[in-house]
């Protein structure tokens, strides 16, 4: 059943093959990139039950750039993880580009993450043993029918878009914080995902570098129509986005 649902959704969505990764993303019939309906996330241990999210209803239009704000422990990162399919909600529905995710297997969830979602983390999470270009190539390693040279070409293109074409063979430890975050952005966008999820992308950077990163993200959103959801504590950066979603104790407050 899971496989049938996945294959049906895939055939509706991805009319272009993986080999045509350089083409613009396919526009699904729905205009919402993300829809969350009554989403709930509860963490249970033997002694404690923690409600991280409750009754979250959120729609994000295709090409929208929103930020999620709230105090610590309000559920921002949990929400981002649920949207990014890194975590499974306890209740409710998650629909990504028209695909209802609930019934998907681990393998299919991995595939959706690989093809439609890109992640940018606060602490970059670059692999220190790999060069910049090898780090950026990681999402493409898990795509089929992509040759060595195509993968390398796409990685170089992504690095070019974030202004790091001169650093391709450096190691992450040889870059500044801002540069590392650019590499992380390049890694997130190399597979041309429709959705970018950024968890405090400027949290470890000074204000100037933070502004640079925001400029890159804004550029991606305006020039390429990438849907971006950004978790941030920074009011100034959130005001550069189209909409702010506020969470408090796991609930939306706006």
């Amino acid at each position, binding site marked *: 059943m899971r496989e049938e649902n996945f294959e049906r959704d895939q055939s509706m969505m991805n009319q272009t093959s993986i080999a045509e990764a350089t083409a613009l993303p396919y526009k699904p019939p729905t205009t919402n990139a993300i829809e969350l309906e009554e989403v709930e996330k509860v963490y249970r241990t033997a002694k404690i039950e923690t409600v991280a999210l409750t009754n979250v209803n959120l729609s994000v239009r295709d090409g929208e750039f929103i930020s999620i704000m709230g105090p610590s422990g309000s559920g921002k990162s949990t929400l981002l993880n649920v949207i990014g399919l890194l975590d499974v909600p306890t209740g409710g529905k998650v629909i990504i580009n028209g695909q209802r995710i609930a019934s998907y297997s681990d393998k299919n969830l991995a595939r959706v993450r690989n093809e439609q979602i890109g992640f940018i983390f606060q602490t970059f999470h670059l692999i220190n043993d790999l060069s910049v270009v090898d780090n950026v190539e990681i999402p493409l390693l898990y*795509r089929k029918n992509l040759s060595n040279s195509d993968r390398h070409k796409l990685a170089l293109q992504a690095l070019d878009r974030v202004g790091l074409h001169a650093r391709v063979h450096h190691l992450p430890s040889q870059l500044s914080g801002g540069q590392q975050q650019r590499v992380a952005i390049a890694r997130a966008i190399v597979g041309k995902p429709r959705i970018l999820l950024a968890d405090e992308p400027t949290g470890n950077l000074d204000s100037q570098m933070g502004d640079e990163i925001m400029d890159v993200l804004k550029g991606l959103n305006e020039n390429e129509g990438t849907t971006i959801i950004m978790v941030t504590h920074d009011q100034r950066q959130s005001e550069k986005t189209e909409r702010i979603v506020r969470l408090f104790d796991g609930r939306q407050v706006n």
Partner: protein
Amino acid sequence: MVTMLKNYFKIAFKVFLRRKFFTFISLFAISFTLVVLMVAVSFLDHIFGKMSPENKQDRTLGVFSMQMKCPSGDCTMSASGGYRFFDRYARNLPGAEKMSLFTEQEKVYSYKNGDKIESYIKRTDGKFWEILEFNFLEGGPYTDDDDKNENYVAVINDTTRRKFFGNDSAVGKTIEVDAQHFRVVGVVADVPFLRQIPFADIWAPITTMKTRAYRDELIGSFMAIYQAHSAADFPAMKAEFQARLKQVEFPDPKHWNQMYGLIETNFEFFSRSLVHEFVTTRSDRIGPTLAITAIIIAIILFMLLPTINLININVSRIMERASEIGVRKAFGASSRVLIGQFMIENVLLTLIGGCIGFALSRIVLRLITESGWFPYAEFQLNYRIFVYGFLLAIFFGLISGVYPAWKMSRLHPVQALKG
């Protein structure tokens, strides 16, 4: 697939170099274990494997030890068999094509130009040279007629030839051994010391023994080997031998009236000795089984140590790489793909350890050979041992990678990203 594998290898090497000490520990554990196992297997192969002159081991049985008991059963006399027993009771077993009698090797001394030469001498009948296929470098063997006629002839090995005659031929010349003089009729290639049935430096007919007392002994210093038509004859030979034991007439039945012995393969004798079972009809079944079981258990236990070590190291490595695993999962690596990556890393490390182990094994075996601890021994890795060792290395890699890979696959991406 090739690209993915190349990437796996690239990452694997970077991981190995990241934690050099752990990599060294892993490689040391694997290679040391393999060296010990390869050397042990090489030894076993050297002692029991098919090797000239024992080319018909698959259809040869022997009697290597015997025992007599007193009427009460409290006292026993153990030794090799006696000439009288073999000659009178143990010839012409059904299924046996040929039978040979020979003594244990005895250390003797010779003197040449003031130098003392130490040798091992074995007395045999003529059939000895028909059952065992020695490589004659000069001349040929003596025969049953030489034995019957008490001819003082001898076959010597190549090392003994050089000791006595340098680079000259030895056939037709005389050597003095333990105050006896023998005419050399043949020179054979050296036989390793650990091949106890054929081994000696000098072979001479039984009738050249200094005394004749051996002819009346039921228990003594003789062993016998029997060449069967095929291994299918073994059960009948064994049964008949047991029946013959019951026919023995004892010269002094008040003192000794029971005789025990087994006709068995060399390996059966070895394994029986290993478990200290001796001369009962039960032990011929238990001995080899227990020996093989003990060897297998020893190998498994020995392998377990580095395997457990590798598992522990790999589990701790996984925890170090939790962040990387989280990133890969976030960007689309399924659990199966990650397990594959990890297993390949592990197998690669094991293969490298295996290669080091093989190289070290060759060095160790060469050192043992050249040490002279085992005269005329030539320990080497042959292709069979190489293949077994290679498979062992792969098995290591898989076993020590399965649990850590499974643990890694269960890491939740969110938890993994937190490190």
